[in-house]
């Protein structure tokens, strides 16, 4: 169990996160927020790359900064972007990181073979890192995060650069990992988390807004999401979410707390919640 307790992080006078409290158990936890909300800052603190100004982060009731290498021993992390030495091959790169994670060479080679197969890069093991495409690099990043069979897996925008097929494969992998491990992923791609996240954490104005299941979040908008042709302007009190094209033309999707006579109700999804909560910030 990973516990964030009253954590605040400031950069000079700017408060990136304020008094955040979250508990991460086994399962997939999705941090959903627009850019700049403080997701990456929280991730960096969860990975010990950065210390909070106030509060503490506990792993099984012990401070992660005091646990030091014992915590990092059970940690896997994929940053938003990562550097590498361009001239080395994928296997050399992974072997180096495996050594830093304390794995012996034989064990590391076996693990690398297994992970490269899982991420569909078995044939690329001897390719130089500089020859890899963005999607392949991201898959190498995912493989390195899993090298030490981590109990806590933290992934910052893991599906960036992946094509739809890779994203589905990755979602399945995460879903499987989430059965036995604590998986925390930050993203602003709602579809990535809708099907696999056991809990969704929303951060707004640098504070924790909510930490609930997808169903709980969506239920808050149930009966309040409607669609109507875009030819009709939004009425007072209606909050625009998105628009889509159908056979009859453009259709507006919006939230209304009363039932409009000229609109049809639709089921609320996580994207509706996201757009409703962050609508102003995104626009």
């Amino acid at each position: 169990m990973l516990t964030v307790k009253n954590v605040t992080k400031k950069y000079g006078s700017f408060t990136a996160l304020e008094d955040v409290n979250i508990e991460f158990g086994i399962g997939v936890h999705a941090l959903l927020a627009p850019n700049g909300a403080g997701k990456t800052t929280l991730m960096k603190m969860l990975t010990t790359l950065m210390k909070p100004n106030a509060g503490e982060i506990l792993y099984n009731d012990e401070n992660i900064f005091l646990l030091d290498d014992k915590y990092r021993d059970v940690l896997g992390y994929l940053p938003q972007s990562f550097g590498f030495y361009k001239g080395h091959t994928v296997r050399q790169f992974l072997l180096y990181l495996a050594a830093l994670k304390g794995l012996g060479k034989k064990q590391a080679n076996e693990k690398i073979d297994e992970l490269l197969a899982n991420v569909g890069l078995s044939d690329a093991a001897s390719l130089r890192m500089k020859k890899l495409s963005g999607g392949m690099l991201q898959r190498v990043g995912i493989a390195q995060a899993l090298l030490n069979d981590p109990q806590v897996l933290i992934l910052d925008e893991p599906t960036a650069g992946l094509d739809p097929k890779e994203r589905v494969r990755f979602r399945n992998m995460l879903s499987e990992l989430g059965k036995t491990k604590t998986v925390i992923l930050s993203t602003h791609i709602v579809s990535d988390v809708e099907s696999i996240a056991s809990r969704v954490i929303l951060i707004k104005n640098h504070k924790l807004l909510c930490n609930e299941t997808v169903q709980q979040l969506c239920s808050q908008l149930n009966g309040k999401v409607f669609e109507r042709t875009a030819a009709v302007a939004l009425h007072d009190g209606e909050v625009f979410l998105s628009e889509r094209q159908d056979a009859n033309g453009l259709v507006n999707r919006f939230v209304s707390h009363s039932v409009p006579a000229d609109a049809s109700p639709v089921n609320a999804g996580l994207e509706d919640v996201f757009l409703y909560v962050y609508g102003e910030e995104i626009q």
Partner: protein
Amino acid sequence: MNYDIPMPTAEEKNAAVKVILCEAMPPKENVFSLLRELSGVFGLRNLFFGIGDCVYLTVLLTFLLYTAVVAMAKQVLCSAVFTASPFLYLAAWLLVVWKEEKSGMLTLQGVCKYTPVHVSAIRMLCFGGMSLLVDIPVAAIAGVLQAGDFWKLLMLSFCALFLYAVLLLCLLLHCKARFAVSVLPVVWGSLCLLPLLKDYVQCETFLRNLPTYSLVLPVIVFAVLYFVLLNRYVRKEEEYADC
């Protein structure tokens, strides 16, 4: 009676052994225990992973500098040996830190069991050892070619090397690596070259007249201080988030 006790799988056993070892093993108290631990899984190849070109360039530059010192510094031999002795250590650090920062690997390394600080500490020992080994033939050749006292030159060069390494560790303990490795060469160069430029005869005379045995104590003091600070450095908590 049913004695069918469910036994753990090999994976569960390994995990349990790992947990027990992790809990029972004493913490990494000093740089030597870290060295022992790392040598089991790390090896020279990983220690110099990605920085082979930096080491090659350092060795090349050191060779050129020492050739110049040995061949041309007859008038200021002691001062030149003292000033130039930490060069391999200095150049290796400057290039390695520059390359690591440029590669962007620190974020990934910073979340591993062995952090860049651990690896740096072991690399320090290696570069220190390399510097000591290089300083011995340099002192010997300089002694022969320029009629200098071998032991005096050796003690001067060890003294300079350990002093530089101690100053670098002091800075590393309190500031970011990129600041430490770029500021210290400037400070070292200024402190050594300014007196030489002002009155090189007096500086050289002072160093030549120092009894060799009087240099042994500073060498021992700086060497002990080096290992004390290195042990402290191994336990340093570094933030890699802005790398």
